[in-house]
Each structure stands twice: as structure tokens, then as C-alpha cells.
């Protein structure tokens, strides 16, 4: 902790590091989005109809709704759990 400039100062991020962090973040989000799209597409659309109709039908629509909702939900949950682990400094019960 620093008190009036004394003590060990917290490591300050340079602008380059900030940009790198932002890029990593963006990469992660894009990656998740791509995975989501491809998973839900293969699950809901390619398997059931193989494009004999232009519009999506009700079954596919419902499937996509559920798929996306679930994917996001799980993603958030896993993220939270990982963050918790990171804070504790433990992983799979090991330190």
C-alpha cells in the first residue's frame, strides 16, 4: 500500500499494455461469439432441416433461443467460477 507516494507503488499499466489487454478481451468475446454461432447453427439448423426452406421454422427458432440462452448462461457461470478460483489462487483443489 502506498501512503502519500511512499511504499511500493502499484504497477501502473502502460498504454500499450492496456491496448493488449483490450485486444485480448475483444479476442475472447469474438471467439465466444463465433463458437456460439457455430454450435447453435450445427445443433439447430443443419441437423434438422438442411435448408429445404428459406425461413427458419418454429422448431429451429425455439432451438436457437434455448441454445443461445444456455450458452451465455454457462459461459457467465464458468467465467465467474474461474474468477473465484483466480482470486483464491487455487485450481482443482491445488494451490
Amino acid at each position: 500500500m502506498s501512503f502519500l507516494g511512499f511504499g511500493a507503488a502499484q504497477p501502473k499499466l502502460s498504454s500499450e499494455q492496456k491496448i493488449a489487454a483490450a485486444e485480448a478481451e475483444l479476442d475472447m468475446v469474438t471467439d465466444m461469439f463465433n463458437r456460439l454461432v457455430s454450435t447453435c447453427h450445427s445443433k439447430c439448423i443443419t441437423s434438422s432441416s438442411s435448408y429445404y426452406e428459406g425461413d427458419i421454422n418454429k422448431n429451429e427458432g425455439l432451438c436457437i433461443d434455448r441454445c443461445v440462452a444456455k450458452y451465455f448462461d454457462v459461459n457467465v457461470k464458468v467465467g465467474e467460477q474461474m474468477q473465484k478460483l483466480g482470486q483464491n489462487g487455487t485450481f482443482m483443489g491445488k494451490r
Partner: protein
Amino acid sequence: MSESVKQQEPVAEAAQAVPKPKPKGYTNPALKMMGINNIRLPSRNWMVFWSLCGAIGGGTFYNYYQQKKVREKWTKYVKPYGDKSFQLNNLPRTLTIYVAPPPDDYLDESLLVFRKYIKPILNAAAVDFILFTESRQGEIRSKVAQDIRDIRKEIIQLENDTKEAERIREKENSILNKPVKFFKWLFFNGHKKVKKSEEEIEKDKREEFLLRVKDAKNILGLYYKNRNELINKPAVSEDSLVDEYEPYNTGGVLCIGRGAYKEYIIGLQEGLLGPLENPHAEKTVGIEDKQENRIEEVPEVPEVKVLSLDDIKSPNNVEMPTNISEIKSESKNDTNESNDINNTNDTNDTNTNTNTNETNNETNNETNNETNNNNNSNDNEKVEELTEKQKEEEKKKQKLIPYITREKFENEGEFPKELSKYYENNKIKKINTKDNIPPFFQQPVSVFPVYNLVGITTFPRRIYRYYNKHKLMDRYGEMTAKVIEKRIRKFDASVDKFSAIDEEEDWSKRWVKRGIENNSEWLQDFVIDDRVANKLWVYDLEGPIQESQESNSTIADTQL
């Protein structure tokens, strides 16, 4: 068996005396050349063994094969509903499903009925659902009642809001207000008439451009060209598009198990005919209001779990029916206790007491031996856990106390004013809510029985049912298809009192006896008040389904 054994005894002795030659069986030089000496039937014991294995295994296999076929049959039957085209902003029809565990068994049994027999067909028809489960009797009832009360409050709120808005509009439009408006307009816009220099105009344009670019959706990507389709369209539920005078022609409520149905009907009456605010809360909490315990004591919505789409598999304990009179006496005790607290002016409740004890122990810990201290604190923790558990238990029981009991529906129950205007002239009008979907109590109800036998004496019947599951499955499939087809009719108390009553034959006698002793909700009379009954619609699950084949196509043709 014993006779045959007796008969065989002399034969066996003879065999011991003179070793019996093995039967030769069938043989052939060609087979011999291939290394197969004799083909003969196996011994009697092996024959018995194999035929038994074959019978059990074959029966099982046949059953599963038939189940698969039945499932395919019904999923194919309802598939036209799932194949309708679907707009991106549409939400499909949603069923509300209440699942109660069968008597003396786990919730899993009822969930299995849903998961194996009903869900595949719902999925094929692209019908969404919300699942509510209970782990003890009364939870569905109080959940239903609480939901209805919430909806009623929402309706009152909405009405007040619209009235308020109308009043404001009238005020604004009145003649007196017009000159004021004009001056206001002058005040805010008068200065704008000054001509701008070119620089300023350019600056404005730049700002406008930057504002537009700020959100990438405005200049590129998926949203750029499909703006109207993707962003400006709010999600519309299929249920909200129903005819205003036919709110019962959409959605739907499924009760899995006769008990769930009974609880649903009672909960419906409790919610509709009962008071909006908890009468018990006023009595018990009224005194405590001055203290700070109020938040803890106010009964809230019971914790009815909402399961996700693929149901949770953990078994939930089925608990014995809660004794209503017992709960009442307990609540009385609570009031007594609170009175005592008031009298002595003691602000510490039990919780704080235990806490102080713990802190005392902790201070002791620092001075004493470590081992002893650990034991002490552990014991303390255990005691605390126990009391907390008991408290939670009591809280849960408190939550299940009905706002109005079934004996009082007829005399004290009152159909709410805010709803009665939707039921004028023998017509049912859709109740306006925020999401525009008719509330679940306007949607039709259906019951799916859960046939579940418990105990050893029922084993023969259970074996019989095990091998005939595909027939049951066919029945469930037909019922689900009827629900999907929206085959509805008005509630008829003389018939619908007894829907799924054959399930009650499966309830074990011991459980029934215990239930009657404990005042179980499932075993009391089926009460339904006329004021509720004549507004209720049900699914017509009797009768053959093939008749509706034509109407099926007509329904399928009409688009959203």
C-alpha cells in the same frame, strides 16, 4: 416344482447307478469335417435358464422398441406445428407445468413422466414450457395463489397508471394551458432563430457524424442494413396475439399428478377469492412492526424451484404432508413469544444471544487449550446450525399458510373488482398485463396422471406395467397432442372433479391413512367455487383424436 423334484429323485438315483449316455444329437460328415461334432439341445436347466432370459430380455426389448415407435408416431403427428415459419422476434407458445411428486416417492418419478412421455412431443411441436416443482405439499398451491395476487396487484397498478396518464393529458389539453405552452415554446426555441455561421454549421455536422459513428451498428455490419428487422422490432409472444375474447385459446397449464391438479385448483381459488394482503401477517407481525424483525417474518412466495430446460436430476425428498393445524398453533406460539419479548423489553432475540455466546467462547479459546476450544466451537456451530435449520423449517411452513382456507371460499371469498370487468356478460375478455399475454389462470388446464406404485406387495402389478409401458406412453402422447391442438372446452365440475382420479388407486393405503390424520391437502374434498369454475377452461383429453385430423390441418394453416 416340488412334485417334479420328487418324481425325479428315483431317476437321479438310477442315473447315479448307471451313468446315462449323453444324447447323440444330430451329426453330419460335412459338419464333422468343419470341426462341429454333434448338434444337440442343451440340458434341461440350461433350457430353463435361456428361455427365462429370453422372455425377460425380449419383453424389455419389445417394450423399448414399441416406446420408440410410439414416440415417433406422436412427434410426427405434431410436427406440422413445429414446421410453421417463425419470425425472429416471435416467441413460441408457452405452457406452465406444475409437477408434484407421487405419494411416498421422489419428485424424480413425476419428472420422468414429463421427461420421457411429454417433453419430446412438446419439443417436436415447438411449444415452450416453464416448469414448477414442489418438494412438499402446498408449495404449488401457495405459488399459484401468490402469482395470481401478484398479477392482481399489477393490474391495479396498471389501471392507476393509465388513469394518471389520462389526467395529465387532459390537463395539458385544457384551454387554459395553451397560452402557457406557447410562452414556454417561445422561451426554449426563440433563440434558435439566430443565423449560424458556416463554421458553426460545419461543427454541428461533424458532431452529428461522430455521434452516428459512435455506435458501429449505424455504419457497418449485420445491423446496418437490417436495422428495422433486428433492432426496432420488439419480441412478440405468440400467446399475446390471441383473440381478445378468447384468452383461453392459448398457452395452457399442465399439472403432472392428481395432487398437483388439486393444489392448482385450490391455489386458483385462494388467489382469486382471497385477500391481496396476508391476513396472518397483520396479526403476527403487527406487534413486531416497531421492532426490526419485520422483514424476517413476512411470509413471501414459497421457494418453488424453476427447473431449466433439461431437468435437474437430483432427487428431492418428498416430505410428509404438513399439518395445517400444527402450523397454525406454531404461528400462535410465535405471537406469544413476540409478546413476551415486548413485555420484557428485551431487544435481544435468540440469534444475537447465540452470537454473544460464540464471541465469549472465542475469547476463551485464546486463553485455553486448543483442542478443547475446537470441540467447544464445533459444538456451538452445530447447535447454531440446528437452530437455523429449525428456523428455516418454520419459515417455510409459515409461507405455506393459505390466505384464505377452503372452507371460507363460499362465504368469505370475494371475486376481485379489478378482474370482474373482464368477465361481464358471460364473456371472457383478455386481462391486460404488461406483456400482453393472458395470465395463466385464463389459460386452460389439464391433468396428466402419474401412475406410481410403492411397496413390495405391488410387485406383480409393477412388473405388468413395466412390460406395458408403451401403451401408457401412447395415452400420454395422445393427451399431449390434444393439448398442442388446443382441444378445449369449458370446465365442467361434475366431470373435471374426477380427472385423473384413477391415479388415486395407486396411492398406498398407509400413506392415505397418514395423510388423513395429518390433514393432507391431497386427501381433502375437491372444492371448486362456481365463481371460479365458470371462468375456467380445460383441455378435453377424452375421446378419440382422429376426428380432429381435419381441424388440425386448419389450425396448422392459420399462421401467426
